[in-house]
């Protein structure tokens, strides 16, 4: 469904991404993990053309979207849930969701809204509250709901677990699992490697803007390199002390 091929991005003299290729098949849940500053957000933003690319191509649903403007990419069926949620905190929950579907016909927005309330009952309960009043987990649900208002085929998720308590993180991932089971294709980037890999089928490891490992998510979860770098299991053997 999504094929990113040999993508490079620079900020001035700094190369943020070097020759990154990743793909997501229809219905797949793929996670890309990496530490802070590895280039994860840059990758999603350049796929959506929120920032420009210096090299490489992006194909979505068999068509090249490398140079398409962001709204047109959204129109093709891709949506992004940005890092830090970026909800409109002064608007109500309902208004936030409606904003997500602002280019859609009113009738469609209404059905979608209904679907979102079904998926996230807490949003229905709080539909008239201002979004800024929601807890972190609820805000994340709202951000996902807002992205889903455009009825995307592919959802890009940027650090869904950031700033959330472990139980809430689990709740968010369980929602993603439900969405994936319903046929949504997901590409997620995370520092929280355990959760990201537990719920995904495949994974990539990004380090300093380059992919240095990839494979089935289960393989990566058991990998020593991943364990040391991302799962907080750095240790020294006795002969190394």
């Amino acid at each position, binding site marked *: 469904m999504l094929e990113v091929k*040999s993508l490079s991005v620079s900020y001035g003299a700094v190369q943020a991404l070097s020759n990154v290729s990743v*793909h997501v098949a229809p219905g797949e849940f793929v996670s890309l993990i990496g530490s802070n500053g590895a280039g994860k957000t840059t990758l999603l933003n350049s796929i959506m053309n929120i920032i420009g690319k210096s090299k490489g191509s992006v194909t979505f649903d068999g068509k090249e979207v490398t140079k398409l403007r962001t709204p047109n990419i959204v129109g093709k069926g891709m949506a992004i849930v940005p890092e830090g949620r970026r909800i409109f905190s002064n608007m109500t929950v309902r208004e936030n969701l409606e904003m997500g579907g602002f280019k859609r016909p009113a009738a469609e927005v209404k059905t979608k809204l209904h679907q979102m309330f079904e998926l996230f009952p807490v949003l229905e309960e709080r539909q008239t509250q201002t979004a800024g009043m929601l807890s972190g987990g609820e805000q994340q649900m709202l951000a996902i709901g807002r992205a889903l208002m455009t009825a995307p085929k592919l959802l890009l998720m940027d650090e869904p677990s950031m700033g959330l308590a472990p139980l809430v993180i689990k709740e968010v991932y369980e929602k993603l699992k439900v969405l994936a089971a319903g046929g949504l294709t997901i590409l997620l980037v995370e520092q929280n490697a355990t959760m990201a890999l537990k719920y995904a089928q495949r994974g990539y490891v990004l380090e300093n803007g380059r*992919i240095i490992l990839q494979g089935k998510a289960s393989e990566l979860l058991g990998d020593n390199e991943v364990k040391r770098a991302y799962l907080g299991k750095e240790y020294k053997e006795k002969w190394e002390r």
Partner: protein
Amino acid sequence: MGEMKFWQKDEETMPVAQRQVFQLERLQTTVNRAYEKVDFYRKKFDELKIKPDIIGELSDISKLPFTTKQDLRDNYPYGMFAVPLRDIVRIHSSSGTTGKPTVVGYTASDLQQWNDLVSRIMVAGGVSREDIVHVSFTYGLFTGGFGLHYGAENIGASVIPVSSGNTSRQLAIMEDYKSTVLVATPSYALHIAETMEKAGIGKDKLSLKIALLGSEPWGDKVRAEIEERLGVQAFDNYGLSELMGPGISGECECKSGLHINEDFFYPEIIDPATLQPLPLGEKGELVLTTLKREGMPLIRYRTRDITRLYREECSCGRTLIKMEKAKGRTDDMLIINGVNVFPSQVEEALSKVDGASPHYMIFVRKRGALDEMEIKVEVTEAIFFDEMKKQKKLLEDLTAQLAKILLFKPKVNLVMGQTLERFEGKAKRVVDERNI
């Protein structure tokens, strides 16, 4: 329980274009890892002024430098590893009789992948969890025994780690334990057949159905003979210890070439003289790049084996590219009963024994099913005619020294000085009379 047709169906039958997406991603990852984590590759890339980003397309692989066996020796023992030693869970190595040995290391995931790739090849030959697999490859530093062993266990078959030697005991095991699959070199399979016939054991006494043969070149004539005399279906498989061991490629039921596990090894054919890549279908030297190996990524490793690659719709359903049985080498290595021998090893042995001249010839021929290597060495007239005692001692010393270096005992004959052919320019010291 039904017969297994594939071990990893999705991977083995994936449309070629889809597999190429994985291949490019894995190639880029491999190159990134090699550059980041292996000093040898970083230096080599820096010398050539190339960066890992040079790989935008699969075809860009031809811009990368080759890796040779010598590079592995130069970085003995652990210089080619891309992970700290604590992540390595298995080490195999060559015998290292000429210069330094080549060492290979496997991480836990490398081992799991090795198992799966060998399982693929075994299942392609018809092996299932119902089978009793008789492994008569040598166990030890050599990758053959362990490779096939764990691949078979991975399927769930019953494995008998017989290892090599003592053919009559092997036959007794085969008869009593009802082995259904024989893993051996083709020449050893024939040797078993001969031993059987001599002992008056008919093939109906054995339960063998399948023979998975490898580690030396063999042709369809030998296949037909093995199949007839042992009552089996015989399949070829190919591997190199530097790259992993067995499991790189193997034949399916169609017996029309070996499917390469190209989602793990990217194959190219080069012209060994110009080192330029050749178009698909042409004969040349096989070059392989590891695509998923974590412990020891190798970029464009020159196998020295001569073969041809081709794609065809295979009725087994596999979309994996095929290679012809490897025949011939681009170096002077000989394969004697599955053991690799370089003429330089013989030279080394001669140099260590007083009284032997450096003039020698190697004759390789078939003696029954097995290969026989005879080395003729010139000695001085004095020793040859007058000093029988000295002659006997020299012969013994030479044989012992050669056995130490070659790891098997060759036949040695002393000849009078000046009787072997002299060469101007490149010497041709090997006469291979085997007809493969």
